[in-house]
């Protein structure tokens, strides 16, 4: 998604920033750090934005004041987003955040959209986080994802092509793999 949006958004003033949540990194992936990671991607466009630099220098002067708080981060991000024509924010696997971080994250994204309504937010997650997404974005657009038989088959073909022990493969086995697995997988997702 990030790449597709980047390909399409060659225009001046359009920025795409993304983040992948990972349950293995839950402790470090706080809302402030996630928002900071998004902001980092916006400020690398055309150098560090002046206001971020000023905030950094101010924080540096203050005793022990170097750690950023979420409200300050959201404020900076809102300012950065407002200077651009349009910003796309993509966040993968919302369900992998700690519940507390998820709510803060959605709340912060909402603040950004309220301030800059052109902002487009693309998020993915397991079905159970839909409730939380809807809580913050009641009119959000929702799309269920399931792999098509065709895509599974293409994926298997690719994997079989890369098989390092080809001797163990026969035409019959190959044909069975390509027929049975896509069927079973799509049945599996149909019932979910």
């Amino acid at each position, binding site marked *: *998604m*990030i*790449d*597709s949006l980047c390909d399409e958004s060659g225009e001046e003033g359009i920025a795409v920033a*993304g*983040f*992948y949540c*990972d349950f293995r*990194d839950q402790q*470090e*992936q706080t809302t402030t*750090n*996630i*928002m*900071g*990671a998004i*902001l*980092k*991607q916006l*400020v690398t466009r055309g*150098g*560090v934005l002046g206001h*971020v*630099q000023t905030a*950094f220098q101010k924080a540096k002067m203050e005793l022990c004041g*170097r750690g*950023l708080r979420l409200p300050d*981060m959201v404020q900076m991000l809102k300012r950065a987003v407002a200077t651009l024509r*349009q910003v796309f924010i993509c966040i993968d*696997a919302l369900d992998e955040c700690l519940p507390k971080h998820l709510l803060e994250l959605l709340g912060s994204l909402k603040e950004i*959209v*309220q301030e800059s*309504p052109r*902002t*487009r*937010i693309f*998020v*993915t*997650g*397991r*079905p159970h*986080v*839909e409730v939380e*997404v809807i809580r913050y*974005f*009641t*009119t*959000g*657009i*929702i*799309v*269920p*994802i399931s*792999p*098509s038989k065709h*895509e599974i088959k*293409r*994926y298997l073909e*690719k994997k079989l092509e890369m098989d390092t022990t080809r001797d163990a493969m026969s035409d019959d086995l190959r044909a069975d793999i390509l027929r049975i697995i896509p069927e079973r997988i799509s049945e599996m*997702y149909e019932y979910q």
Partner: protein
Amino acid sequence: MDRTAYPHSINSGNSNSYNVTNIHNNITDANKVIADENTEIMRWLSPLDPGRRHQDVRTDRLDGVGNWLLETNEFREWRSSEGEADKAVLFCYGNPGVGKTFLR
């Protein structure tokens, strides 16, 4: 006359080249300070680096998989409704392993 002019020209040459080197060093130092500060700012903003993970996803992605999403009405509506806050969010859900991360 030559003997007196010669050292002078060497001197002036040296002082010129000293100045140029000096200016060059100053510019290099200034660039280095800016670069160092930028690195520091980046670290201050967040210790996380999503770029690496994105590179992995790109490498593992099979071209064309997930392209169907770009053709859906939902995606088009989200993409084209610029400025409409109520359509700002597109949420794609699915169970583990359906390919949410690899949507293109």
